């Protein structure tokens, strides 16, 4: 049967399957193990990512008395978020938006340069699936052994090996779910509390939830997540162009594929020996020779597999290579196409990234640990007093995000002879006030500002409240207004 008719018959079988079944069976994938530089890089990245994930909650960081000692802690109960030396409050949540924008643009930039490396190397789905596949391989054997085992009737050895595999999977999944919780509660104490039954219900619920998702997604769902659940493969193609590096089969070199030795004067044959190794090692079970596909996560394991074969058959390596479509087309035509990292698309992503990084860094560096928020009383808008003066009330919130108690001088500008007093505090009005703010707290009080109507040139006078840190001298200004009835004659006498 010729190659063409072979393909045609395969297509016909597929068509029959489509026409007769509304729903498709899942094709079981038995990825074969492979060795090579790409596999080594993948292991290194896997170990690095998992180490960070599992170890980071245990890293300690000294912050001072009565402060959490965990380097990275998202404390939802007290609403404080700690990242090493950085402490964020819920008010700083917009920084998270900045970080997300940064992450998104970085992903766009990397994808447009070197394709879906996120999918192939660092995506948690890939990392944990890779780990689970390795365990499966170590216990049940490589591709052929697993296929034979699954096709054969159940025996005690299979049951034992499957039991062992799922137990180890579940243990790792549990460890993963537990580590996730440790980012939200103190790791050493929650570890103890978990086993003594003293941990909060959500700790057990979420540990269980993430145990099940890890086990289900990495053990069972695997490539189905990438193909059917994840939105990223669906739109990542929008970041690619013919200058982006992807895992590519050099069809011009490989086709027509043919098995067997190449002999002088024999039938026309490309470099591809049609050994199908690239398909058997693929974790998503696709054939890279069909070109760029949605299912391809760009992990490059097929490159390792193919290079071994090329080495053995004495042909140049890189039949499946990390290359751009433009360079492939050029090579086919016998020309040389330079690598073009700098193109309008990447430049736009790069500038967007630069803006995001600069903005975020500036915001972080200039972030004040002293916050002032002033809310003017709206009812009543103003209070005329018996002596003819006018009074406005303001609710002050002084946010002290630092680790030391603060003392501040509060003054007002924009309103001549304005006098301030804290409600229920010292009733003597004065032009400046000394207020304090405990560390890591929000100090709230109501301030009464009194002014002579003569000082009012308008019904709404802009005023500035100036809060000066007495130790550092740093100032925080809040713009507000002082209101009164226009033309009020209270001060005439």
């Amino acid at each position: 049967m010729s190659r063409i008719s072979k393909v045609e018959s395969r297509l016909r079988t597929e068509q029959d399957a489509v026409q007769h079944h509304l729903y498709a069976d899942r094709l079981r994938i038995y990825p074969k193990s492979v060795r090579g530089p790409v596999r080594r890089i993948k292991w290194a990245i896997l170990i690095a990512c998992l180490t960070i994930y599992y170890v980071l909650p245990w890293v300690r960081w000294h912050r001072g008395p009565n402060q959490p000692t965990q380097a990275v802690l998202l404390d939802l109960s007290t609403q404080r978020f700690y990242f090493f030396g950085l402490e964020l409050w819920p008010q700083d949540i917009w920084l998270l938006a900045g970080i997300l924008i940064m992450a998104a643009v970085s992903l766009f930039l990397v994808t447009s340069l070197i394709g879906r490396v996120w999918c192939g190397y660092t995506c948690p789905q890939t990392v944990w699936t890779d780990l689970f596949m390795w365990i499966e391989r170590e216990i049940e054997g490589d591709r052929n052994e697993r296929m034979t085992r699954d096709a054969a009737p159940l025996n005690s050895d299979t049951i034992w090996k499957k039991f062992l595999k799922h137990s180890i999977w579940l243990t790792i999944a549990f460890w993963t779910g537990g580590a996730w919780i440790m980012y939200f509660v103190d790791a050493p104490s929650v570890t103890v509390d978990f086993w003594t039954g003293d941990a909060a219900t959500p700790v057990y619920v979420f540990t269980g939830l993430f145990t099940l998702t890890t086990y289900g997604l990495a053990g069972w769902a695997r490539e189905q997540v990438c193909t059917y659940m994840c939105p990223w493969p669906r739109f990542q193609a929008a970041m690619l162009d013919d200058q982006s590096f992807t895992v590519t089969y050099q069809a011009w070199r490989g086709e027509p594929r043919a098995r067997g030795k190449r002999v002088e004067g024999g039938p026309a044959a490309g470099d591809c020996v049609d050994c199908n190794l690239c398909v058997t090692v693929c974790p998503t079970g696709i054939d890279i020779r069909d070109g760029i596909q949605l299912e391809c996560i760009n992990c490059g394991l097929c490159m390792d597999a193919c290079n071994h074969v090329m080495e053995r058959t004495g042909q140049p390596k890189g039949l499946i290579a990390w290359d751009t479509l433009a360079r492939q087309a050029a090579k086919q035509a016998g020309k040389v196409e330079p690598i073009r990292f700098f193109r309008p698309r990447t430049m736009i992503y790069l500038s967007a990234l630069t803006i995001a990084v600069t903005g975020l860094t500036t915001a972080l560096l200039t972030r004040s640990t002293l916050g002032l928020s002033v809310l003017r009383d709206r009812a009543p808008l103003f209070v005329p007093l018996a002596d003819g003066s006018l009074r406005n009330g303001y609710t002050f919130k002084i946010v002290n995000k630092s680790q030391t108690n603060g003392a501040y001088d509060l003054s007002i500008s924009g309103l001549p002879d304005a006098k301030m007093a804290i409600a229920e505090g010292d009733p003597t009005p004065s032009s400046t006030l000394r207020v304090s703010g405990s560390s890591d707290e929000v100090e709230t009080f109501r301030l009464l500002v009194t002014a002579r109507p003569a000082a009012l040139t308008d019904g709404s006078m802009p005023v500035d409240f100036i809060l000066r840190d007495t130790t550092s001298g740093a100032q925080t200004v809040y713009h507000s207004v002082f209101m009164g009835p226009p033309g009020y004659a209270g001060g005439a006498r």
Partner: protein
Amino acid sequence: MPTKIEKDAVSGRDTTGHEWDGIKELDTPLPKWWLYTFYACIGIAFVIFFLYPSIPYGPGYWHGVMGYSQRKMVDAEVAKLTAIRKVSLDKIGSLSFEQIKADPQLLEVAMTDGRITFAENCQPCHGAGGGGHIGYPALAAGSWLWGGTLDDIQQTVTHGIRSGDDDARNSAMPHFGADGLLKPAEIQQVADFVWSTFYGHKTEGQDVSAGAKIFAENCIACHGENGEGNRVVGAPRLNSHIHLYGDARETIVAQVTLPRQGVMPNWNHRLDPATIKAVTLYVHALGGGE
């Protein structure tokens, strides 16, 4: 409607027959696990129907076997919160104002309770934030009729003003005009005097000595020689920029002729002593407290 189902040349598959701007969709089968997940969701929905209140029928509905009721949950929550509040309310009731103010946490509870109580009971007359209205004193201004210390305010809130309560604050201004104690012309003269001397509307060359004489004979017993008022009898201060019934000369004439006598209810039959203490603390903190 899909009309043109055709064979795709590249994949050999059928298309769905849908077409958008020349883009045709392949009829790709859903994975079976997706279908089973869908069935499982339907199954779970029925379990939830069975467990929780769900299907209405006739006059009632299926209550579910879990005894789930949001109304009961609200009642339980309210009962729980009432029990929590009772602890601090009891404390507020038994402690003195000074003791409450010395405990920031308790003070915060009292102020919150006072704010809510004020909004529900006092605000219709005294205005949000104690801003006051014509005829209803501005509590935030500190120009008190009966005194502005915490004890004064507590007394007024508890027993009211001319409320009929035995301990209510009581006083009555004579009906100088209606009862013929002063002639209309005399009322005009004393109004001129009060208007120019105390309200601050002096007119050049105006002679108010006649009014001053009438004021000295009839009014200073309560309102004071300099119009400073008298809190013992709730006599308003006249030498002020804010006035209970407004800042116009006619209000003086009207008040001397047939005085309006404001009434405030006694709240001791509506609010418990601890809540009255809480609202007292709140009113005191509005800005006028003494």
